[in-house]
């Protein structure tokens, strides 16, 4: 018998092992739900799979009585739009700030302390100021997401820019490159895959801010729906919505990873 340290599961048992805890959790849920529903058939806390299925098929497959919309898809579309826009803005800002502060020592000295402070401020606490500045429309929701994750991305990109071997910057200069050329041709392309990584890492926070933003003033969106139905504790809607959010987050994450591998085949292949 090999040491536990050296035991490698086969491909097949790897999949099985991975599914095991998930199946267990599902089982525990089903049992708990059954027990509660047996005690009170109207209990709302742990709905059965059938109840959740009903609720979601009603929202996804039947037009809403009042608005005629397919609520589930409208919510998904609105939320994704806000999230992606917010993340896109954060990524662009973060890239530019990170590139400037990470490559130009003068900028770095000027903005690093500010960035550190900004990244530590809890943005949710300053919502009122955000509203005044950005109004109440889509803009403020997108802005909350962007403001929430830009400092993180900017700091990450800054650190990554500083990690690029100085030898490359010197080499470029010996080839005649000026500052702008070094930034655009040497640093920027190498920061792109790192930007994708940073975006992946900050997607979780992005969802958090999205849900928080949609709770504030909104007429649709996944976070809006969760907050709304919380008023009558419709866990049969909340749980599938949370699961759906998790799935979307997972797909987005994998998509970004795939893009990164696709577009930047040289990334993560060790220093050369």
């Amino acid at each position, binding site marked *: 018998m090999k040491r536990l340290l050296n035991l490698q599961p086969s491909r097949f048992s790897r999949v099985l092992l991975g599914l095991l805890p998930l199946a267990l959790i599902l089982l525990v849920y089903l049992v708990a739900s059954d027990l509660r529903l047996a005690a009170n058939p109207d209990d709302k806390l742990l709905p059965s799979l059938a109840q959740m299925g009903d609720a979601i098929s009603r929202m996804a497959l039947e037009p809403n009585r009042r608005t005629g919309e397919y609520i589930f898809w409208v919510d998904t579309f609105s939320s994704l739009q806000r999230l992606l826009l917010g993340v896109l803005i954060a990524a662009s800002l973060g890239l530019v700030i990170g590139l400037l502060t990470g490559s130009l020592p003068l900028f770095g000295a000027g903005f690093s302390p500010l960035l550190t402070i900004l990244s530590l401020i809890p943005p949710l606490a300053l919502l009122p100021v955000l509203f005044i500045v950005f109004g109440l429309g889509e803009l403020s929701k997108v802005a909350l997401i962007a403001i929430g994750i830009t400092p993180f991305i900017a700091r990450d990109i800054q650190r990554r820019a500083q990690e690029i*071997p100085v*030898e*490359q910057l*010197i*080499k*470029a*200069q*010996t*080839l*005649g*490159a*000026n500052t*702008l*050329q*070094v930034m*655009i*041709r*040497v640093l920027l*392309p*190498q920061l792109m895959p790192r930007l994708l990584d940073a975006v992946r890492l900050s997607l979780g926070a992005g969802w958090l801010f999205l849900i928080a933003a949609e709770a504030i003033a909104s007429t649709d969106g996944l976070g809006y729906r969760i907050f709304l139905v919380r008023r009558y504790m419709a866990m049969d809607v909340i749980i599938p919505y949370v699961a759906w959010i998790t799935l979307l987050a997972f797909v987005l994450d994998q998509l970004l990873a795939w893009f990164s591998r696709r577009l*930047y*085949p*040289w*990334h993560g*292949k*060790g*220093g*050369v």
Partner: protein
Amino acid sequence: MLEARNLWKRYGDKVVLERISVSVQEGEFVTLVGTSGCGKSTFLKLLLGTETASEGQLLLDGQPVRDEPDSDRGIVFQQYSVFPHMTVLDNVMAARAFARRGLTGYLFGQARREAQGAAMELLHKVGLGHALKLYPHQLSGGMRQRLAIAQALLAKPRILLLDEPFGALDPGIRADMHQLVLELWQSHQLTVFMVTHDLKEGFYLGTRLWVFDKLRHDPQAPDAYGAGITYDLPVGKSDRQTLQAIQADLKEPQHDIQN
């Protein structure tokens, strides 16, 4: 062409180089050897302009060398000398793009086609003609250094600095690289400074060999004194005794196999 006048380099209290006075003519091939940490790379950095001397002067054609890298002085490091995110062809074309004073460092249209032609010609010359579309991480160490050299040459530097360029290569590949460097040195009429760990490499390649070592030594304060050039040999005139004397100094293993 290049002249050092009583050059000193300190980092804080630590003296790395001291009292270096030397002059080099256009077209010389200087190899630099010395123990690890004695300041060879630091000397190259002074030549390159990424470090400035604490004292003394370093003159190029009578003018102080510029205090930042420019296209007069090319460099090849042991590592990180090529751009990992560009293909072999792009790496060399980038050198062309940088040479024109554009804003972005990208080439378009006619300029691009021209650069491509020149780059491909050079790449064929250094034996990378079959690898144009590969990324550096797909190349072997030797191919990578060939690429780095090709790139450096395209900027037509007057001085080429090589900091242990072959330190990480296999012996067989190293021999090919020696050939390449010697050819390019002659055909481009370069002035070359090459740091190496391998004394024999230094003897074989250079027209002139510098040995860096401490001139004075204080066991109590190892940082108090820096290194200078202890030997400055016109290679070819040196004999076996000199080599052995230097080997003894540098504590190179003495046990050659019996032959």
